[in-house]
């Protein structure tokens, strides 16, 4: 497809969308009579609701149904797929890895983001310092995974072979043997988790920095007059004041972590016991063509995410209400 064809497609898409929206608004405007309010309200909401129905609810329902069928979506197998997820050894490893990810990543990323936000708050180089930490968020997950693959790279310690990975080079400089980190189970999971922490700390820092700046200054002044400074100020004044924001950040990062697929796929391809549920879902559905199993794994992710989302929405309402 040439460039012209692509631009033409873009133009056609935008024009068609504008035309459809124009028709919807025109119909909403022309409605007269007793039920004009109903028609107006429904017309405004209808396009979004329709797209949600088609793009979200119908595929979700179909996936839920497919999770009860077998590999070719032909026969009904009941809870067989789910039972296999919780009993088959390599799938239990997958669940264990996902649990590691969900427990470690949000807490560490939020802690580092919070500490850094407090440290650089109201200093001279604040903007530049924040930009440095936020930079990894601007890199796609795949790019970040490749960067860290270089950092962990391993070369055997022989004559005429130099290390190209930073971590192994440090080990060699300190006098140790280089280690092929990616192969060591189960610690290689922690290496991949570091990548996610590296990315998400910027998000945590940005949100928490805004929350810290929103603390009323008279509270801080009163505390300083009382002689509270440094660490005690942080634990007794800052942290309680930004608690809703901290909870929102932790839950948002948890939701992102449950969907992580690119990092695992790029760094190890899911081998060496590093696979997570999202990666396994891709493997089962598209590599092994076991749609029933893939759908069951997707439903497991969904069931894990829903309580976090509900809690997140409720906390965000509290943040807005303040």
């Amino acid at each position, binding site marked *: 497809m040439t*460039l012209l064809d*692509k*631009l033409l*497609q*873009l133009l056609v*898409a*935008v024009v068609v*969308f504008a035309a459809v*929206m124009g028709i919807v608004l025109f119909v909403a405007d022309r409605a007269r009579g007793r039920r*004009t*309010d*109903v028609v*107006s*309200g*429904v*017309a*405004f*909401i209808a*396009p*979004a*609701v329709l*797209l949600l129905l088609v793009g979200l609810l119908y595929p979700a329902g179909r996936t839920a149904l497919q999770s009860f069928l077998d590999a070719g979506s032909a026969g009904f197998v009941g809870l067989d797929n789910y039972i296999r997820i919780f009993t088959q050894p390599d799938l239990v490893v997958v669940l264990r890895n996902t649990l590691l990810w969900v427990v470690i990543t949000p807490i560490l990323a939020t802690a*580092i983001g919070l*500490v*850094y936000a407090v*440290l*650089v708050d*109201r*200093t*001279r180089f604040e903007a530049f*310092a924040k930009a*440095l*930490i936020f*930079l*990894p968020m601007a*890199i796609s997950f795949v790019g970040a995974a*490749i*960067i*860290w693959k*270089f*950092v962990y790279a391993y070369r055997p310690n022989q004559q005429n*072979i*130099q*290390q*190209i*990975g*930073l971590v192994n*080079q440090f080990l060699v400089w300190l006098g140790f043997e280089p280690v092929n980190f990616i192969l060591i189970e189960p610690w290689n999971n922690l290496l991949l988790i570091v990548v996610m922490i*590296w990315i998400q*700390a910027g998000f945590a820092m940005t949100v928490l920095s805004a929350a810290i700046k929103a603390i009323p*200054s*008279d509270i801080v*002044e009163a505390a*300083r*007059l009382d002689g509270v*400074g*440094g660490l005690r100020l942080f634990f007794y004044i800052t942290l309680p004041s930004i608690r809703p924001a901290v909870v929102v950040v932790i839950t948002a990062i948890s939701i992102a972590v449950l969907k992580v697929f690119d990092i695992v796929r790029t760094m190890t391809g899911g081998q060496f016991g590093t696979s997570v549920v999202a990666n396994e879902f891709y493997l089962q559905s598209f590599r092994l063509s076991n749609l029933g199993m893939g759908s069951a794994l997707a439903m497991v992710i969904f069931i894990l995410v829903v309580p976090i989302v509900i809690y997140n929405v409720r906390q965000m309402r509290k943040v807005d209400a303040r």
Partner: protein
Amino acid sequence: MTVLDTTGTAGPGLASAAPSRSATAKKGLSSPWASLAALVIAVLWTIPTFGLFLSSFRPERDVQRTGWWTFLTNPNLTFENYADVLFGGSQPLSGFFVNSILITIPSVTIPIILATMAAYGFAWTRFRCATRSSWRSSRSRSCRCRSRCCPSWRSSSAPA
């Protein structure tokens, strides 16, 4: 800081102590340990990206055989990688850039327009079974959620 500066009722001891604290806060971090900690975190976060940035300017042979830190002592700069990726080869990246732009523009503008319309509809349409607590408090408690919500236009001047 402004509270202390404008009120003239602070005692002499407080007036001399407060400006120095605000001054130190503006100049730098409150303690050298905090500066060091922030610097360490910033350096740790930047090193991987910096390594990739340097690697992009090194010839392929060097990247495969030595680490990027050797570039600092033994620079061997080349723009070959960039030329190859952007313009040469079988799949120049410039084509992918165009694809990205063509995907980004509609996928940003269309959802914003749809969501703005839906948000307007949700904000200004009065549903009988609304869950907004501020609105519910002004209505009677007997208003329950029925199986079919009847939306009507909410306006302050219209009678209930």
